[in-house]
């Protein structure tokens, strides 16, 4: 049974990683704590839901749409709203993203209604079983997608010019500007990437549970824990943080009680902030306060 619990935790962790990675990237690079992250993810859930419901499109095939649409959405938000206040105090940015969150949640409530939705394709619930351990296909695929996305993101940041520019901007803004990198463009791109990844997470979320506009806050909170655990701005960190959170939740639920799992997850976050505020893989210069 314990093996099953561990595997459950890892599979769940894959999803947490995906919701956390975009959040962590945006925070690490642009120093914006994006409180609208969960709401943006839900937009992805609705894209998948409506494509499935109206066009009978397989939920996994809607992933590219979700990513691209929210990539554009994120770019526009950063380019035409956030960039105007990005030099202001961090407090102003918090208020701004909080405002965007409220707007998005109410927008979704108005146009998509507050009813809970879920996407259930015909193959939902099928699972493979070996040695008494059950691995549900959908959760497994979600995990694999998260892993692949993490690897691609890691390569992108390491190998491409834009990736390097993003990292350079997060490490030393002034030096990056001296080499001809335009922080405005990099910020917009990073935020767009973060939103696109949130959209992916949202699309996958619609398969495993029910969602409505008002679970946005809960999603942001998960992303927050993942980012703190893993270390800001680090893609591998977010993945590790996500899997860790998943395992902690399932283990504490098994040994201590399902009712305590949230308390334990948050307790761990506080512990991490005290012991190693930069997170498991975070380094000192990532996400230093620049303002």
């Amino acid at each position, binding site marked *: *049974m314990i093996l*099953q*619990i561990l595997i*459950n935790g890892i*599979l*769940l962790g894959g999803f947490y990683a995906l919701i956390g990675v975009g959040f962590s990237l945006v925070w690490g690079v642009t120093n914006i704590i994006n409180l609208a992250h969960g709401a943006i993810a839900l937009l992805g859930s609705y894209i998948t839901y409506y494509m499935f419901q109206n066009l009978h499109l397989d939920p996994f095939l809607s992933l590219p749409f979700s990513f691209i649409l929210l990539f554009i959405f994120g770019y526009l938000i950063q380019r035409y709203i956030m960039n105007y206040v990005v030099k202001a105090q961090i407090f102003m940015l918090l208020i701004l993203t909080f405002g965007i969150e409220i707007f998005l949640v109410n927008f979704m409530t108005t146009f998509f209604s507050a*009813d*809970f*939705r*879920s996407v*259930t394709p*015909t193959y*939902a*619930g099928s*699972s493979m*079983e070996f040695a008494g351990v*059950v691995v*549900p296909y*959908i*959760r497994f695929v979600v995990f694999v997608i998260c892993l692949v996305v993490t690897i691609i993101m890691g390569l992108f940041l390491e190998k491409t010019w834009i990736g390097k520019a993003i990292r350079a901007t997060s490490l030393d803004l002034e030096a990056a500007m001296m080499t001809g990198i335009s922080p405005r463009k990099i910020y917009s791109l990073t935020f767009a990437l973060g939103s696109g990844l949130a959209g992916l997470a949202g699309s996958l*979320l619609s398969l*495993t*549970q*029910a*969602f*409505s506009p008002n*679970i946005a806050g*809960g999603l942001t909170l*998960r992303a927050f824990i993942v980012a703190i655990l893993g270390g800001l701005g680090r893609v591998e960190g977010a993945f590790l943080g996500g899997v860790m959170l998943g395992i902690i*939740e*399932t283990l504490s*639920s*098994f040994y201590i*009680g*399902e*009712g305590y*799992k*949230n308390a334990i997850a948050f307790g761990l976050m506080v512990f991490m902030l005290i012991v190693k505020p930069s997170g498991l893989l975070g380094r000192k210069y990532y996400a230093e306060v620049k303002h």
Partner: protein
Amino acid sequence: MKKLCLVILFIVALITNSYAADKIVFGASLSLTGKLAKEGNLVKDGYELWKEVVNKKGGINVGGKKYLVDIKYYDDESDPNRGAKLVEKLITEDKIKLILGPYGSESVFATSAITEKYGAIMVQGGAAADKLYTRGFKNLFGIYTVATEYMSDILEMLKDKDPKPSTIAIVYSNDLFSTQVAQGAKAKAQSLGYNIVLFQDYPKGTQDLSTVIVQIKSKNPDIIIGCGHFQDTIVIVKQCKDYKVNPKALAFSVGPTLPDFVDSLKGDSEYIFGAAQWTKSLKYKDPVFGSNAEFVKLFKAKYKEDPNYHSAGGAAAAVIFQRAIEKAGTFTDIAKIREALSKYDEETLFGKIRFDSTGKVVGKSMAVIQILKGTQVTVYPEAVAEGKMVYPKPAWK
């Protein structure tokens, strides 16, 4: 101008007062705006339909004389404290002592304290909290099955089925209402001789219940009962299928009765049971509307949509109030009306209604619905049901 207004008001007051002699006026403070506006207005729809039907028949028969009905409404803006003030206004300024209940446990809790204080009387069809009936009040009567008895009828219904279920797992969200439902279900299951193999709470709005499902699977119970909210109900169903947990019956307190349930789960929603205060297909008779079916028909004609249990609860509360007044032979003597209510025993559109000494409804069964071929079918109480239930539940496809 001000003076003129006052004069007109005075005249209007005089006219309504002189009318009052041939009229019975009820009072109601409802949430017509604010977060409970939807439910509040649905209850009002129920009251209004009742008023229309009664007045069409000539009114309430009190001691051989017929009195027309009127209802004075106030809007509590979804604030229980404001509701309490408005009920006080109804009693002290408008001199109305017959109070129809608001919607929501908090509102009924607050306003019934006022009716009790002033010796007025309230019949409510809009709140299911147990705490309403533990204060020793004499003048509050409620027709919703209370939280702790929510799952009783499902357990009763399943106990003698073949193959006979013996083990049961109960999982519940750790908010107040769900906890009460779960504790009630546990007590009832024990008294019926079921063996409870798991009794587990989980945090409200959780995104993953895999650990709980794995624990359930290791116990392999005949029945799984979920007491939570729509979101966690969906997670439980999905993960039960993921982990191939196949109980003989799967039942929830909240979820299956909502139209989004089938929409969200598609084929996986089949054969799942849900508890309902009332459904529109119950074949009950009713002393005012004739029958539940007739009530549904009239409601549809008036409002162009199907009634749900909010409206039915409102209409039924009013029907019972009316019948008690007729039996008491007075609409001014509160003590006699209370007497008639405590002896009340009649079939209404909401079920067979009796009250215990605390004013809580007894004898009314919860209806049980089962999802069959993508629609909700009322399968219990069997005498008034529309279809036969499927048991044991076939394994997940």
